[in-house]
């Protein structure tokens, strides 16, 4: 991932550098974080961006509502069952 590149500038106050000594679990925090970063990205995320990019904002937010069944949704999702967003075929198997 290219997104870490910008973070080399702040040198002196990098977290942990000036502390007495990093706690023994400090590396575990990074492990927790990195283990998620390194997971395979579910298709849903790229599909969402592709739909947004193609201007299909309605189906993108439909899908957003779909994936949030567990939360109390805002009112505005009346049209949520107009069928699956017809994404480009590699969609969400069934």
């Amino acid at each position, binding site marked *: *991932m*290219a*997104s*870490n590149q*910008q*973070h080399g*500038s*702040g040198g002196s*106050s*990098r*977290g*942990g550098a000036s*502390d007495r000594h990093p*706690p*023994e*679990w*400090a*590396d*575990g*925090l*990074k*492990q*927790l*974080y*990195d*283990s*998620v*970063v*390194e*997971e395979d*990205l*579910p298709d*849903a*995320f*790229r599909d*969402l*961006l592709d739909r*947004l*990019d193609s*201007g299909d*904002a309605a189906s*993108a*937010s439909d899908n*957003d509502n779909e*994936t*949030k069944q*567990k*939360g*109390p949704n*805002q009112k505005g999702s009346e049209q949520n069952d107009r069928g699956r967003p017809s994404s480009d075929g590699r969609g969400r198997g069934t």
Partner: protein
Amino acid sequence: MSEEAPPGDTRTASEKSDFKRELTDVVPHLRAFARGLCGRPDVADDLVQETMLKAWAAQARFEPGTSMRAWTFVILRNAYLTDMRRNRFRGEYDEGVAERILTAPAGQEEPIHLSDLHRALLTLPAERREALLLVGAGGFSYEEAAQICGCAVGTIKSRVGRARAALTEMLAQGNIPRRATDDDIAHSAILEELDMVAAGNGVSSRG
């Protein structure tokens, strides 16, 4: 939420495609930050999708050349705080890491488990937890973390220091709330924190 293309967007096509690429690249980091904040992977991923929609809608405000990760983290944390007020999160932790052993320090019988660390993390007040995540896990400088949280650098340093001290103590003493009580403890800590955040218009002055 309005997901429509922003009006008056004067960016070039290449700037727009750069935005999409950078946003795509940063999604794994959003997932990691969200997982640390709210514990459960499915809830965290919902939060990431919400963040992506908001980032997309606001893309004309992104300054090319600045850090996409920092920009989207601001959106994510604001969405998180908003959702917290609606009570969507309950400080549940990621069972997927429950069996992973973090480290077995010399001279200690009990190894520290990643799941212990994660549970301990989730008992911290939200502001300290996010400060520690940004600096200790995400690798942001104190200055960058302060910008993301909209507070002073000294406040971030203080929050990180307190978070570290609390985690060290919990882990050293094995005093980590067990699963059954964890949710309650984490949740009440978070709600207290939120009351203060709400009272202070989103920026608490407590360190």
